[in-house]
């Protein structure tokens, strides 16, 4: 963790070398976040209820999903640039250093522009919680924390999976963004509205539903009690992702120099 912090500092210092660019990026990010929020607001003004979920409930769902995604982004979005590391041969350098490869990959690239998006997520999350008329009890608060933790695990797992696949394809797979950014988009609504098949897929293959739909129904007093524990089960998703990554590292063949 200390090393990660050090990586963070050196990246920040690098960015601050270019003063004008740094300042402009910060300002730009603020406006982008704000504009995204307005978009969401106006969209929700036109729709009120979907498949038995009210406007407030959907907003809560969106707030939580966005927060899960953004938390995962803080830590794991570095994998986005992983194909670049592979193609430039920079992964060789990582391999000859006595630290965990994943930590080094994450530390090697950081995007500070994310700061704006996190602000936006915090805002949406707070707003979603505020407008929902849920009577907050201790188990429910705990469930939300589980959802955030589980969601972070699932999205981080997806980012890791994306990077692991680069070992085999040597290039980024744009299609993979369907599962990451796409999931954020369709995660605005409880996955059950997309139909039974999608719900099954999101339960057993990529466990979106475990971090979103099931615990949400519990929050809204419609689900069973043990639904609140499902986000923790979703953490298991990290295991196969990690295994594939390890397999990828063994498969790594570098490139000529």
């Amino acid at each position, binding site marked *: 963790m200390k090393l990660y912090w050090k990586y963070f500092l*050196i990246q920040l210092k690098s960015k601050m*070398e270019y003063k004008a660019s740094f300042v402009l990026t910060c300002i730009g990010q603020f406006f982008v976040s704000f504009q995204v929020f307005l978009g969401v607001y106006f969209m929700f003004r036109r729709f009120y209820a979907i498949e038995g979920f009210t406007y407030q409930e959907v907003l809560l769902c969106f707030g939580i999903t966005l927060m899960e995604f953004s938390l995962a982004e803080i830590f794991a979005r570095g994998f986005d640039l992983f194909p670049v590391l592979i193609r430039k041969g920079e992964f*060789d*350098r990582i*391999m000859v250093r006595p*630290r965990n490869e994943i930590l080094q990959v994450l530390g090697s690239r950081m995007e500070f522009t994310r700061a704006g998006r996190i602000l936006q997520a915090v805002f949406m999350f707070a707003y979603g919680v505020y407008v929902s008329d849920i009577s907050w009890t201790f188990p429910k608060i705990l469930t939300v924390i589980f959802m955030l933790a589980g969601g972070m695990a699932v999205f981080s797992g997806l980012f890791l999976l994306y990077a692991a696949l680069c070992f085999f394809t040597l290039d980024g797979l744009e299609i993979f963004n369907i599962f990451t950014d796409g999931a954020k988009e369709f995660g605005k609504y409880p996955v059950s509205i997309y139909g039974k098949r999608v719900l099954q897929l999101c339960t057993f293959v990529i466990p979106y539903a475990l971090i979103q739909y099931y615990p949400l129904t519990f929050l809204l007093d419609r689900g069973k009690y043990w639904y609140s524990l499902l986000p923790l089960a979703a953490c298991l998703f990290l295991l196969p992702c990690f295994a594939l990554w390890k397999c990828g590292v063994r498969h790594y063949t570098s490139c000529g120099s």
Partner: protein
Amino acid sequence: MITLEHVSKTYKVSKRNAGFSSACKALFRREYEYIHALSDVSFTIQDGEMVGYIGPNGAGKSSTIKILSGILIPDSGTCLINGIVPWKNRISHTRGIGVVFGQRTQLWWDVPVIDSYELLKEIYQINTHTYRRNLERLTDMLDLSGLLKTPARQLSLGQRMRCEIAASLLHNPRILFLDEPTIGLDAVSKLAVREFILQLNKEQNTTVILTTHDMQDIEALTNRVILIGKGQILLDGRLEDILLHGSSAEESLAEFYRSHGI
């Protein structure tokens, strides 16, 4: 001590003809070719030895270095470095080695060199005392005092190479891999780098494995050369063994390559 026994490595390379239509074809059906980067390579290097590892482009030099440094896993054969199999115990292995890739930098491009060093201190978990002592020694030997506060992107190639070498030695490695350390350097910088390597080997008894195309590097630094061609070791001995009377090291080497058909 480094021992390499019967190491082989094969790459699968996809092939296609030029042109757009064959690119489309290749999307569906690919033809592969197997390239034997290394076949049955064995050698032993003692502690404190300085070895020149030479051979034409594509002979397998980089592959060997990558296996020795734990990046690649060979298809067959064994490799032991100070009792550790590099790719099985990567983390403890890499604590004991330093690697300089002459064509790639390990310094952070935009920040002063000293900031990069501080981060390396953290990566290698060097204790503060050792770090200070090593930094002082390296600053002295490589004449870095004026460079440490400059961002890496503003250094000249020669200055940067000196900083690179220092960066890979901060953690006191027992073994140093130098992959073309003098490539593109001017005469003064080349001499400075060579002199430093000699001194390091003498004072710290660091094992140095040097790959280069510059025969003067080899003449100045190493007694022993391992010559590799087409993935096989062609010579393991002294440079004088291939020197021809009346021609330079470069010409003799070219003649040697020709006579082996590489």
